[in-house]
């Protein structure tokens, strides 16, 4: 469900996180934009394809956008791609899994941990996919 509230909070959350990561001040707006975009794509795809595939698609698209931002604003890609994946990283899941572990609910814990691992794998795959696509486009031209 995409609402205006979700757009606004994902934008603010990503920008606030990039302050924690000490990103250059003039990149805060673009970072928020990248985070908002990835969250919107994720929310749109997640009901149909599940969280793993939705994360993959969202990061791949945000990775491409980060590459464009990086070339346009002459800053390293990592700034924008980190901001873009902030809403997607499975921090909540990792926390949930750990909580189940210490509560001795191992079945649920392993399930959650596996999901967190798969989602972070999908995010990493998406980022690499965008880099590969970029290289293919560049050498293909």
């Amino acid at each position: 469900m995409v609402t205006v509230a979700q757009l606004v909070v994902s934008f603010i959350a990503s920008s606030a996180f990039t302050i924690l990561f000490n990103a250059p001040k003039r990149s805060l707006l673009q970072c928020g934009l990248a985070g908002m975009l990835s969250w919107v794509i994720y929310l749109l795809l997640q009901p149909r394809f599940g969280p793993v595939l939705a994360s993959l698609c969202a990061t791949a698209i945000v990775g491409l956008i980060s590459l464009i931002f990086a070339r346009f604003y002459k800053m390293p890609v990592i700034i924008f791609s980190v901001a873009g994946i902030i809403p997607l990283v499975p921090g909540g899941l990792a926390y949930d899994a750990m909580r189940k572990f210490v509560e001795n609910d191992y079945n649920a814990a392993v399930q959650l941990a596996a999901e967190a691992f798969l989602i972070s794998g999908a995010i990493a795959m998406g980022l690499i996919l965008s880099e590969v696509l970029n290289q293919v486009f560049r050498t293909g031209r």
Partner: protein
Amino acid sequence: MQLTPGISESSHKADVETATDLCLLAGKIMLQSGAETYRVEDTMTRIATSLGMPLSHSYVTPTGIIFQADSGASSKLIRIAERTTDLQKVTAVNSISRKLTGGAIQAAEAKQELLRIDAAAHAFPVWVLIAAASIASACFTIMFQGGWRDFLPSLISGGLGYSAVIYFQRLVRVKFFAELFAAFLVGLISTLLVRAGIGVALDKIIIGSVMPLVPGLLITNAVRDLMAGHLVSGLSRGAEAFLTAFAIGTGIAALYLFF
């Protein structure tokens, strides 16, 4: 007749020394600022090539860098004890390496700049960081389908949790315990706020508030390193992420012993 090669050899040796020091300094700053392993190696190789050492080798792990500028030169080692995420420094080192390869600055200038970057503090004052962490926490609570009534409690507990991790880290110097105490504090404050009638969904508030602490980025970077073939770095980053997640989980779980 015999003097000339001797002089040029010693000056070449000095060149190699400066190049090695420069590369190691750049690599150290980048690794401490949370750059990916391949980016650190790439930057070091680029700087070395621009200084006339195209055959350099570097071996980067999250806890140390080994660098050899030339096949005949001696290799040097740098130990990395602490790692944070500081994208400003990554950007700055990146632009210096670009200027160096473009020929815009010389090695001596680059070294001055790198030393300045290394000594630079966080660009934002602590209160801005804490404010950012609490706002991010509150927004994450909403993103995880929490209600607007949970906005204020996670704003409070998220900000306090982040301040606690900064404070405890100065106090005990062991990241694991700093994170454990901070997570415990987050759980305690959230529970008290919900008991007091401010806030409804305890789970959403806690998850939102621990988001500035959880190692989401670390997990993703670990998988990225693994896929890029940096197996040692990937596994050790994964271990670091697991420890942090474990600390947070334990901190919250300790709370359930009391309530």
